């Protein structure tokens, strides 16, 4: 246990590094036990329950043994279209336990998780510290047999003898599938030292003006002008300033940030250095979602190489510019994609979105001005430094300049990454990806909208129309769209932080409603309730999660009302259709059975 003192000391006995400490303890011991919680609490001047407050918020931090091998199978709508249920069943049979449990020998723990950023190669699962994709029942049986025989997950994934800091390590585990390249991203042979050199010859104000001029807007979804954010960050007053790269790519269906970090991590680092230069910040944080842990060693090595080359560190290229980057690992919470929740998480706390104002650009990480940018935004900015604002502005559409990456999955011949210019129509994208008989497209993941190909096919991708955050899931005519809606609604209930009433409580009621519809026991009145309760959540929730959680229901009700109406129950007789008479009588039957059995014995 002196190891724990040493661990806390290494993190400066700083409460803001609690998540790092918990993850380190877990890496050694498999989970965080009661004794470790007590010691951490004592060392950080917290109550033990305050430590548990953080632990219990995050999906991937355990306070009990999760099995010698911990298996997380991604439960997503795309996986469900590709054999998820069979894979799940095979895993339960092979491991000898059901999901949510550890088998009797303590060898395997089976757990559900939401999208892990591999939608173009699902079903997929994380096992210990690696991922397996394109799963079949046979494949998972082989993997479990191998683990049982004492082989490691790394060896089964054929990466045992590979160096995790190598650039091709992740590619062994998950493919990048870049289907269409464009002018902005993934460009080879960039001279990064020359670009940093170029950066520091610009005045910060010149750099900001250039980014403003380019028209670049945030690629995370909200579309806030990047140059303006940097200017506000420059003007904000603070003893320190921070730049955070949001690599908590949790929106189901998106994986383009993973591919950027695999293929062009240097672009992202350069974008962060640019933001640091623009703001006058000395510190950068790359917030990497837990699910992308297999990218971490390589990113860490890159940071060290750049420090050695003086592209990062106390004195960049001898110009007196100090900027360094640390990696903050997430621990499993979709809501941390919200920038204020992400900042809370960087401070080692629960990822609860803050009350705004103040906005992070004024008071963010540790109360200091903080600029949070998406991975793709930063990578795009790095090209603007190289090619200029007018080059970038000439791409795309007037208010939506440049290109964007789409993560395409679902019913199409060529799922993967596409770089498109803003202004392209949905139909054109569908043809490009080889969509067969598409019915609906989920644009921007569950938090976005479900559009009808028949009605919306000519709409175009741009901030004023289909303002896509990068996730594009395609469903053909054979799909049960309402199963998708139920899945998405469950996702939001799962991921709600619970801090505000409408999201915490309303989400559960909406989930009950869609289940009622799918069970054929809903009436028109239930559809009205969905619309009104959804509007309530949209209007009154505290953060983007709650305001969008009803969108899967609301947008499909709007575009595909016939799918709901076909399932409505006739509203007749003395009982409400929602009343399940058989279930209600079951308790009576059960009691009756016990009584009559007692009497006869």
């Amino acid at each position: 246990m002196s190891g724990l003192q040493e661990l806390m000391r290494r993190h400066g006995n700083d409460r803001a590094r609690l998540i790092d400490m918990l993850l380190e303890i877990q890496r050694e011991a498999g989970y965080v036990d009661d004794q470790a919680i007590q010691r951490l609490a004592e060392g950080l001047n917290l109550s033990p329950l305050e430590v548990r407050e953080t632990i219990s918020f995050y999906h991937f931090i355990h306070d009990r043994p999760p099995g010698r091998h911990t298996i997380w199978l991604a439960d997503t709508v795309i996986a469900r279209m590709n054999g998820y249920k069979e894979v799940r069943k095979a895993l339960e049979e092979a491991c000898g336990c059901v999901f949510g449990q550890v088998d009797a020998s303590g060898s395997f723990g089976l757990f559900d998780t939401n999208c892990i950023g591999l939608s173009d190669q699902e079903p997929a699962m994380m096992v210990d510290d690696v991922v397996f994709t394109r799963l079949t029942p046979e494949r998972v049986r082989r993997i479990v047999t191998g683990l049982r025989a004492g082989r490691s997950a790394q060896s089964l994934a054929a990466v045992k003898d590979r160096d995790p800091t190598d650039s091709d390590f992740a590619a062994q585990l998950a493919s990048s599938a870049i289907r269409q390249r464009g002018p902005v991203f993934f460009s080879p042979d960039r001279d990064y030292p020359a670009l940093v050199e170029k950066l520091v010859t610009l005045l910060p104000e010149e750099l900001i003006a250039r980014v403003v001029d380019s028209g670049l807007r945030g690629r995370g979804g909200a579309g806030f002008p990047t140059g303006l954010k940097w200017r506000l960050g420059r003007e904000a007053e603070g003893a320190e300033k921070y730049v955070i790269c949001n690599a908590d790519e949790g929106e189901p269906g998106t994986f383009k940030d993973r591919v950027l970090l695999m293929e062009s991590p240097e672009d992202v680092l350069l974008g962060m250095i640019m933001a640091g230069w623009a703001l006058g910040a000395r510190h950068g944080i790359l917030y990497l979602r837990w699910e992308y842990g297999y990218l971490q060693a390589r990113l860490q090595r890159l940071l060290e190489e750049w420090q050695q080359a003086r592209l990062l560190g106390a004195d960049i290229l001898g110009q007196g510019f100090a900027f360094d980057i640390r990696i903050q690992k997430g621990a499993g919470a979709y809501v941390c994609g919200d920038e204020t929740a992400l900042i809370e998480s960087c401070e080692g706390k629960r990822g609860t979105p803050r009350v705004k104002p103040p906005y992070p650009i004024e008071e963010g990480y540790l109360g200091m001005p903080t600029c949070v940018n998406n991975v793709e935004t930063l990578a795009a900015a790095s090209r603007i430094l190289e090619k200029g604002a007018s080059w970038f502005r000439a791409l795309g559409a007037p208010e939506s300049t440049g290109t964007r990456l789409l993560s395409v999955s679902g019913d199409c011949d060529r799922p993967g990454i596409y770089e498109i210019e803003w202004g392209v129509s949905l139909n054109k994208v569908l043809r490009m990806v080889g969509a067969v008989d598409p019915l609906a497209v989920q644009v921007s993941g569950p938090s976005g909208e479900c559009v009808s190909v028949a009605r919306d096919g000519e709409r175009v991708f741009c901030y004023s129309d289909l303002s896509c955050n990068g996730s594009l899931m395609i469903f053909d005519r054979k799909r049960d769209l309402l199963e998708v809606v139920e899945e998405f609604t469950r996702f939001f209930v799962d991921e709600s932080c619970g801090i505000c009433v409408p999201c915490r409580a309303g989400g559960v009621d909406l989930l009950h409603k869609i289940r009622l519809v799918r069970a054929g026991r809903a009436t028109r009145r239930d559809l009205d309730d969905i619309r009104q309760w959804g509007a309530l959540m949209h209007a009154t929730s505290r953060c983007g999660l709650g305001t969008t959680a009803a969108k899967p229901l609301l947008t499909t009700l709007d575009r595909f009302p016939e799918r709901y109406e076909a399932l409505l129950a006739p509203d007749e007789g003395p009982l409400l259709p929602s009343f399940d008479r058989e279930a209600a009588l079951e308790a009576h039957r059960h009691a009756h059975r016990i009584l009559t059995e007692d009497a006869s014995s």
Partner: protein
Amino acid sequence: MSVNITIDGLAVRADAGDTLVDVAADNGVYIPTLCYQRGRPCLGTCRVCSVRVNGNVMAACTVPVADGMEVEVNDPADMRKALVELLFAEGNHNCPSCEKSGRCELQVVGYEVGMMVSRFPYRFPLRDRETRPKKIWLENDRCIFCQRCVEFVRDRETGRRIFSIDHRGSRSRIVMDVALADRMSDQQVREAAELCPVGCILQKGLGYNDPIGRRRFEVRRLRQRVLEGEGQ
């Protein structure tokens, strides 16, 4: 700097940056709150003070007033009512058997928004209560998760939290550190019980002291207390 805003058409002058819910109260407009208390930092959890600001629904406790702001309190009234109803359906709230009845902010706000019955299905959740501390009883059935206790009650000596959150989402619960709770003075226990807007934090050995008709909100309604101040 002073600014001009309108509240349901009423022209109001206020200091820039003041909190909208306070500004409204100072001008005779009552906006119900369950987590917010004047003079304390905003928690922004209950959303019951939702109003329309320049067309968008916002929680009035989170809004600093700015010049030209147009505020509608009347319009989203049904939303505020719905949020109160959500709370009633989410927990187990039985006013007649609750020792906080007549002193409960959820109950009085329920009356204020005109709630008769919840439009949401009652869930009748099973929740564990915490009875171990010597002086405090935590009746989680009635918790509305406002976070007042979590944020504002601290161990006097170490500054550590006595109340904290466990789990997330609809599984979230308030839990209490028993060792720290046992170090609370009688005075601090009384303050914690008063801080709780509902009958969740209870002081052991005390209850039903005030007879019907003389309980806090029966003597003087919450609306009056907010609009005219606590002192009579």
